[in-house]
C-alpha cells in the first residue's frame, strides 16, 4: 500500500511533503525519543510520533521512513512542515491517539 492510499483510509490531514506520496509502506514504527527512533525505525516504515519540531524531518530523512504522522493533535511547527516539503517527506496530522491509529493500520493489513 502506498502512503497516499493509507493516508486516505486513515483520514490523515496532509501537512507537507506531497512529493513522497507514492512510496510503498512496509510497516510501522512508534516512538518519540529521536535517538531511539533513529536506531530502530526501518526504511519505508510509517513513523508515528507526538514530536512536531523540525528535528523530526532529519530523523525521517536519515532513517528513510515513508511518512510521518504527528498523532494526538500534537502541534506541528512551521519549520518542520517547510523542511518536510523541501525533502519530500510526507507529513500528516491526526487527532487520533496512537493506539487507535495502530489498530486501524493493523486493520489495513500493513502491519
Amino acid at each position: 500500500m502506498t502512503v497516499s492510499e493509507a493516508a486516505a483510509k486513515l483520514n490523515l490531514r496532509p501537512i507537507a511533503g506531497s512529493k513522497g506520496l507514492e512510496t510503498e509502506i512496509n510497516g510501522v514504527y512508534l516512538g518519540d525519543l529521536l535517538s531511539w527512533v533513529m536506531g530502530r525505525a526501518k526504511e519505508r516504515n510509517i513513523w508515528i510520533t507526538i514530536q512536531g519540531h523540525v528535528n523530526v524531518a532529519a530523523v525521517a530523512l536519515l532513517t528513510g521512513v515513508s511518512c510521518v504522522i504527528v498523532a494526538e493533535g500534537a502541534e506541528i511547527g512551521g519549520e518542520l512542515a517547510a523542511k518536510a516539503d523541501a525533502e519530500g517527506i510526507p507529513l500528516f496530522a491526526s487527532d487520533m491517539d496512537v493506539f487507535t491509529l495502530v489498530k486501524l493500520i493493523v486493520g489495513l493489513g500493513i502491519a
Partner: protein
Amino acid sequence: MRLHYDVSGGEFLRAGEASSSLKKVLKQLGVSSDVIRKIAIAMYEAEINMVIHANGGVVDVDIDSEAVRIKLEDTGPGIPDIALAMTEGYSTASDEVRDLGFGAGMGLPNMKKNADFLNVMSEVGKGTTVEIKVNL
C-alpha cells in the same frame, strides 16, 4: 572525495543538516542503502551531540573506494568518563533537550553499533574528537 561541514551550535533545531547532506552525496555515489543508513545514523548522533553539548564544531568526511571516514571535532567541555558515556541510557542532556526527544542515552551506543570503527578522544575543558569509519 573530501567534504567539510561547519556545524553551528546555536542552531539546535537545524541539527542534522550535515548528516542529511552527506546522505544525499552517498546516494548519488551509488552507495548501498544499508551502508548509507549506518553512516547516516552514526554521523547524526555525533552531530547532535556536538550541537547539544559542545556548541557546534567541524566535520570532515573522506570517501574512497573502501570506506567512509568521518572526523568530528569540537572545542566543547569534553567527556569526563567515556566508558560511562558509552553506556546505553546514560545521558547528561538538559530537560529542555529531553523534551525534544533527545537525551535517551542512545547516541554513543548507536554510533558504536553502526560504525565499523569508532574512536572517541576527549579532554575535559578542551574538547572532543570522534572518528567514525564505515566500510563500503
